[in-house]
């Protein structure tokens, strides 16, 4: 018997990190404020989750400028895409398995 939750990635347990990954999967690049708006979060809360995902190599940070203001955007990495898709497969198997 294999462990039914063995395929689930611990990093995506958090709904916020899950949300960030979902959004990045369908958008090439997205800036911090749009993420904040979509997930309805505060700055600090979102920033800590983003740092976590970045440290795991799942997302890439691009620092740029719009005029004088910094404009930081994020995109998903190959590793992030793979990990997230495996997580989705894991979820799917779990639903199927128990049915």
């Amino acid at each position: 018997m294999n462990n039914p939750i063995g395929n689930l990635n611990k990093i995506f347990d958090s709904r916020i990190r899950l949300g960030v990954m979902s959004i990045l999967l369908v958008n090439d690049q997205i800036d911090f404020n749009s993420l904040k708006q979509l997930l309805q979060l505060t700055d600090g809360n979102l920033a800590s989750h983003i740092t976590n995902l970045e440290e795991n190599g799942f997302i890439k940070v691009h620092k740029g400028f719009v005029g004088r203001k910094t404009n930081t955007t994020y995109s998903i990495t190959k590793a992030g895409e793979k990990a997230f898709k495996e997580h989705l497969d894991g979820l799917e198997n779990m639903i199927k398995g128990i049915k």
Partner: protein
Amino acid sequence: MDSQNASLETLQDIRRMMDRSSRFISLSGLSGVSAGMFALVGAYLAHQWIGGYYQRYNNRDGFANNDFHELKWKLAILAAVVLAGAILSAFYFTWRKASLHQLSMWDHSSKKLLINLLIPLLTGGLFVLGLLYHDEWLFVAPACLVFYGLSLVNASKYTLTDIRYMGLFEILLGLINMFYVGYSLYFWAIGFGLLHIIYGLIMWWKYDREAKSGNGMGGSA
């Protein structure tokens, strides 16, 4: 059992975030209906004015330059008023729907929608101005319809998918119109008036109506 429910919920969360971040879903069906109404009233007035012009033309038994100029200007102003009215009312209903769902009207997805709508639409606008510059009136209506249809098809990736079919119908109407340019006003009225109203009602029926009655039922599928 519990973990099954949790997994389902997680999947729904993911889907909602994907949809909300890549598509502008606050587009209101009523926007289409109101824009269509403006177009129909505009087409009716244009029809009356053009009819009046030809009546005077026949009575006088000839062409009068100032009469023609007056008609041209009246039609140009009418077109501008109709366009402004349609856009403003469309904005209003979409803004109302967005604030009803506590979503922002100006966000990541609406910016993408607007940019992708405007690329073919502005191209079409300039193309039509070019036609007018060369005093080429014959193909104005077909060009409007075709370019508007292309804009909708292009923009449909960033909003409700129904827009795509409406765009295809506009293109088809424009292409048929090319071969019946004498009936341009009717094609224009069907494309910008009737199609807007029909699609507006369909979208209102599909999305807005149930949202109003089933608030908070979690019917986000």
